[in-house]
């Protein structure tokens, strides 16, 4: 069985980056073709996927003065919405979808963004045509893949049972919220961000929660051991029971209901609801079928262009050649989706710049706010600023003596300062970082 912890900040390795020169040639070609097509036809920019990246691109194109047609293809039965609240406030609150929609319907009318309710099933690059499930089709002047990612599925008997749930869409969150009303004992597989956010919400409702994680510690791949340890203690303090370095070997049902989950050490965890959060896989199949190089993501250069000058990819589905980290990356976060959408909107309206935004991320778990600036992947030394016992600290991660990333727990100011510092590639002396009376602003 394959069990991986949920990750937003996912780093791909083993892929050879595009040579910068080649990327630039391709880009100027992309630019020229886009312009040529633009004067000749009234074909729209077609955006496949109306998630965070797709919505932001449509909005940013209009903000950048783009006047031509935009078709935003939406395969979910709602107005475009944001996902972060789905594992947090939306689960516990009154669940008014208004609170998660980006904008009301009038926005799409007023800004002439054609919201097409359909699913794209094929792309013909020769004729620049997208075909829909409804058998309709649409020609494009520029095509943007913003197809996001989907949940990695648990493969074992009973994994398809109705009491086994995943959390990605508004519909998922609504269904889980309903079940939480009667749930007494839930099991969460995967101690990644989504699993832990859900666990905190369920525990706050007084529900007994067991969390099963294959790795030796929670959020192992995306946060430092200090932060991992802090959150482990906090979740345990809230009543969650964490089973690290364990996997699930069976799911048992009886009389049509989920009964329990059996761990690899034979322990039985009774459960009336099982939430699976074992990572996601990018939606690359459509691009692959169209012959666009894809692996763990649709391959794009530092301008977010695929090998086809008429097609770009952004957001969770894009494996981009990172200007900042000099390696291919696929990130799963709101900031990445938003910043890539803005960068692409700029290119499509003639303001070409490579994508080099600093990644940042947040996760609210119970009463704790975790914020991460930069990537917490290659570091040797850490410095703690503040006090975990006071529920307020930041972890400064250094590699080769240079500041690489900063994790902040309930220290919003540190996080904002870290974003500025890292974006500007400014490092901070570790002694100063550790000293609370040192004002980080002065390092800027």
């Amino acid at each position: 069985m394959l069990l991986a912890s949920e990750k937003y900040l996912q780093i791909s390795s083993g892929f050879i980056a595009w040579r910068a020169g080649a990327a630039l040639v391709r880009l100027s070609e992309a630019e020229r073709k886009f312009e040529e097509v633009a004067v000749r036809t009234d074909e729209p920019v077609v955006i496949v996927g109306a998630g965070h990246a797709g919505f932001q691109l449509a909005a940013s194109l209009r903000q950048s003065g783009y006047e031509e047609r935009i078709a935003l293809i939406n395969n979910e039965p709602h107005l475009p919405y944001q996902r972060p609240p789905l594992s947090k406030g939306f689960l516990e609150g009154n669940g008014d979808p208004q609170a998660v929609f980006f904008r009301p319907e009038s926005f799409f009318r007023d800004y002439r963004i054609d919201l097409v309710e359909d699913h794209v099933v094929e792309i013909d690059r020769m004729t620049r045509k997208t075909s829909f499930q409804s058998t309709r089709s649409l020609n494009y002047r520029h095509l943007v893949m913003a197809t996001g990612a989907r949940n990695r599925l648990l493969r074992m008997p009973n994994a398809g049972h109705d009491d086994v749930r995943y959390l990605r869409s508004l519909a998922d969150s609504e269904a889980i919220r309903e079940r939480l009303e009667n749930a007494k004992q839930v099991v969460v597989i995967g101690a990644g961000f989504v699993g832990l956010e859900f666990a905190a919400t369920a525990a706050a409702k007084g529900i007994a929660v067991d969390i099963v994680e294959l790795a030796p510690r929670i959020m192992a791949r995306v946060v430092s051991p200090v932060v991992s340890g802090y959150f482990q203690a906090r979740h345990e303090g809230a009543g969650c029971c964490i089973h690290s370095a364990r996997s699930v070997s069976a799911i048992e049902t009886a009389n049509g209901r989920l009964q329990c989950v059996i761990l690899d050490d034979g322990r039985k965890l009774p459960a009336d609801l099982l939430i699976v959060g074992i990572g996601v896989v990018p939606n690359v199949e459509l691009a692959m079928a169209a012959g666009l190089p894809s692996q763990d993501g649709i391959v794009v250069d530092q301008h977010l262009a695929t090998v086809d000058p008429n097609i770009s990819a952004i957001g969770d589905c894009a494996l981009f050649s990172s200007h900042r980290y000099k390696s291919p990356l696929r990130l799963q976060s709101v900031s990445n989706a938003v910043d890539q959408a803005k960068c692409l909107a700029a290119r499509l309206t003639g303001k070409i710049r490579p994508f080099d935004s600093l990644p940042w991320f947040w996760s609210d778990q119970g009463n704790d706010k975790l914020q991460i600036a930069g990537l917490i992947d290659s570091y040797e030394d850490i410095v703690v600023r503040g006090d975990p016992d006071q529920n307020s600290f930041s972890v400064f991660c250094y590699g080769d003596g240079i500041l690489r990333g900063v994790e902040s727990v309930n220290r919003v100011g540190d996080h904002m300062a870290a974003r500025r510092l890292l974006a500007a590639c400014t490092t901070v002396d570790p002694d100063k970082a550790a000293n609370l009376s040192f004002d980080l602003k002065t390092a800027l």
Partner: protein
Amino acid sequence: MPRVIFVASNGARREVSEAAGASAMTAARINDVSGIEAECAGALSCGTCHVYVAPEFASLLPPPSEEEEGMLEFVAAERRVGSRLSCQIVLTDELDGLTLEIPETQT
């Protein structure tokens, strides 16, 4: 339903009404007032929902939390006396007519 008046940086005014309990940021989003980006949807993480509260309303608002203060120090546009994060302003009937100026830039 309390009214909120959003004033764009070019002076254009937009009056909306939203149920008490909603945040000023949500009121802007639901009513399609542009200029408040709100990338984190009110999670107090992005700093892109910055507004300037008109002086006559400033004293009616509870003061910013330490976290909001921390974030206001790093907003993109100039920080002024009335600077607040609109996702942290909860609308109440008492705040009827709340006037919020939207800065020129959020990022």
